[in-house]
């Protein structure tokens, strides 16, 4: 299957409180033909081992994996930040993990993922901020916008917790503010094979 006409090369998603359901809803909308990689930073407790990969694998046709260090970022895959590690996109186009101090009290931090992804993918990146109770991700989304990438935020009335989308909308002047269902549809139109 070839998707030669896609401009975008990757999607990064940031989510916190209320994110599990929100990410699940987006994944459920994605067609099986959706084939650009997604990288996800979902805040979870640092003291438990993450079951996010199993949780989301049941909801999507994408290959789901907890990101390891230096995984080549492949099409059609969803990479999830492990608990207690930051996930970055390296300059070699592979994933990179770190235990640098928490950013915005968070590890993984959405800003860390988004900023590193913006560095690597430039204007070929889509950043999406979903439900959450803090302001992590706002700076990262702003950087994606500055680099010419596309910025999407979950609409406030559809977000379980509004603080994070609100902060992102204010900081980044997002291109699209969409409900979860529309985010899914939108992604499908971006990646039509």
């Amino acid at each position, binding site marked *: 299957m070839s998707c030669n006409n896609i401009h975008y090369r990757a999607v990064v998603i940031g989510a916190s409180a209320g994110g599990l359901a929100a990410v699940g809803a987006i994944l459920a909308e994605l067609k099986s033909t959706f084939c650009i990689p997604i990288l996800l930073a979902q805040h979870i407790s640092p003291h438990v081992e993450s079951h996010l990969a199993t949780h989301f694998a049941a909801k999507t046709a994408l290959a789901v994996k907890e990101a390891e*260090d230096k995984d080549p970022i492949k099409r059609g895959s969803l990479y999830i930040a492990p608990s207690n590690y930051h996930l970055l996109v*390296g300059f070699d186009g592979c994933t990179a993990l*770190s235990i640098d*101090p928490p950013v915005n009290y968070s590890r993984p931090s959405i800003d860390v993922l988004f900023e590193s992804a913006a*560095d690597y993918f430039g204007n070929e990146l889509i950043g999406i901020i979903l439900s959450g109770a803090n302001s992590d991700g706002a700076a990262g989304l702003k950087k994606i916008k500055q680099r010419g990438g596309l910025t999407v935020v979950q609409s406030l009335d559809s977000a379980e917790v509004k603080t994070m989308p609100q902060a992102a909308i204010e900081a980044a002047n997002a291109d699209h503010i969409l409900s979860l269902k529309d985010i899914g549809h939108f992604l499908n139109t971006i990646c039509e094979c």
Partner: protein
Amino acid sequence: MNDITNEQLEIQLLLEAIYIKYGYDFREYSLAHTKRRLEYRCGIEGIKNYAEMQHKVIHDANFFEQLLLDLSINVTEMFRDPWFYKKVRELVIPHLHTYPFLKIWHAGCSAGQEVYSMGIILHEESLKERAQVYATDFNESILEKAKKGIYPMDLIRQYSANYQAANGSASFSDYYTADYDHVIMKNVLKDKVLFTPHNLATDGAFGEMHVIFCRNVLIYFTRELQNRVFNLFYDSLIPGGFLCLGSKESLRFADIADKFELVSEPEKIYRKKRGR
């Protein structure tokens, strides 16, 4: 023309300057990490670009010391990933009982929490008296902290919880004396430990180790540098010796991967095979 941005070029030049002037080699560290740390310092000092930073680092040794602290991420914890220490007790310790004399190396030990965690296990397993422990890091100021073993009181609650979760049989407070707002690790955990500088990027092997710990260090290196370090560890281990990596690190990119056997996958504990 080379396929590299001006920004990457400037960072490479900065790292080259640091290497030539101070001998610390960050040229094979993963660039995304390095850039984050440099940006962080730029933000604090109001430095506008890497050219300015290069000038400052060349002319101001104190600034370099600061940058060194930024670049060597010293984040660590007592009994970090408790399930790892549980597995060490279960799978590694029984083998160590079979040796009359033991050598253990903590490479990239940071402020020493990992060394004291293992020290407690050695003590509880009655292995301490026959052990010689080497605790190394390339950052001498953090090594000085490791040697002192003094930690802020407000971290102790988490450390105790980790110790319990790692199947600790005593009370964590048995291992330190408290003093106002900090604790001091007891001498019994220090007397067999040699704290000494060692740079994994530039220095050679340590001989005849029974166990090597190197956790959350290699994630900051490129594959090439990781590869070299794995060879260094291979050369430093006795046949049957154990290599313990961080939970998200693995030997999968090492060209000597097949010279190790996997002892426990989730905890990333490996064992050097016997024979050639």
